[in-house]
């Protein structure tokens, strides 16, 4: 097997309802259980509030704003899991319902999205096609990333 074929990436599949999406596992810092999030008045749709994590406020990112097949967060709704992930702007909290174990896949299996919506790339894990979500790209596309980050 050549070097290019052996390149692997580690992904963390996240489920909300019947829909799955994957993030780069290296971004994930911690997986919490059921943790209420707090809507912040004047906050945006993408970053609608915070959760308390180790006594500090962590911004909540609503994946439903980015991925149209996912339901949006609603005020006071609490999901079963919260993935704390690292970005160039600090930690973000991703409320989800299910978290799969980390999956190592050949990077060549990441392809342009044709079966899923909301991300330019997708991958198939356990026979499920799912968008590959790059948090840094989301922040850049929304004009939130710090210049030069990424």
């Amino acid at each position, binding site marked *: 097997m050549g070097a290019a074929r052996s390149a692997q990436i580690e992904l963390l599949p996240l489920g909300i309802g019947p829909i799955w999406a994957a993030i780069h596992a290296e971004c994930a810092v911690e997986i919490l259980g059921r*943790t*209420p*999030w*707090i809507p*912040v*008045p*004047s*906050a*945006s749709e*993408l*970053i609608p509030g*915070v959760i*308390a994590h180790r*006594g*500090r*406020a*962590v*911004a909540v*990112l609503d994946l439903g704003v980015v991925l149209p097949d996912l339901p949006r967060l609603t005020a*006071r709704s*609490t999901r079963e899991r919260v993935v704390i992930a690292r*970005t160039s*702007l*600090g*930690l*973000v909290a991703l409320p989800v319902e299910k978290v799969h174990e980390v999956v190592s896949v050949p990077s060549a299996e990441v392809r342009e999205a044709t079966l899923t919506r909301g991300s330019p790339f997708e991958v198939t894990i356990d026979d499920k096609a799912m968008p590959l979500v790059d948090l840094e790209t989301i*922040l850049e596309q*929304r004009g*939130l990333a710090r210049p030069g980050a990424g």
Partner: protein
Amino acid sequence: MTRGEGWMMTVADPAFRWGVDASRVERVIGRAEWSGAMPVDGAARLGGGVIRDEATRVMLFATETEALPVLARGEIALERVDGEARSPVPELLRRAGCSDALLGFVFRGPGEVTFLVAPKLLTPPVTSEESHA
């Protein structure tokens, strides 16, 4: 140490609980007693919407020029706050557009929070809706 350091005056507004550094509060008076400039609706400025409610009071804050009146709707309490309990606004939330008047959070329990507010940043022009509140 300044007077009031570690103390927060909180308002249990129907929309959400907010609080200010108690050392900045000069007086709290009944709405009917206030005859100065139109008070700022603090909760509405933060995005909580305008709620018509006669049972409001006015908190007067010290500024460099004159007292800043802010409407306080709901029970007012004085609470001691451990500095460790105060959490700043995450940079991402700030960049995503939350109000500059929001200074931070004091977590009170699961899903319960007090929004820490900077009164002097609550002062864009008064809306016509507020002027009738």
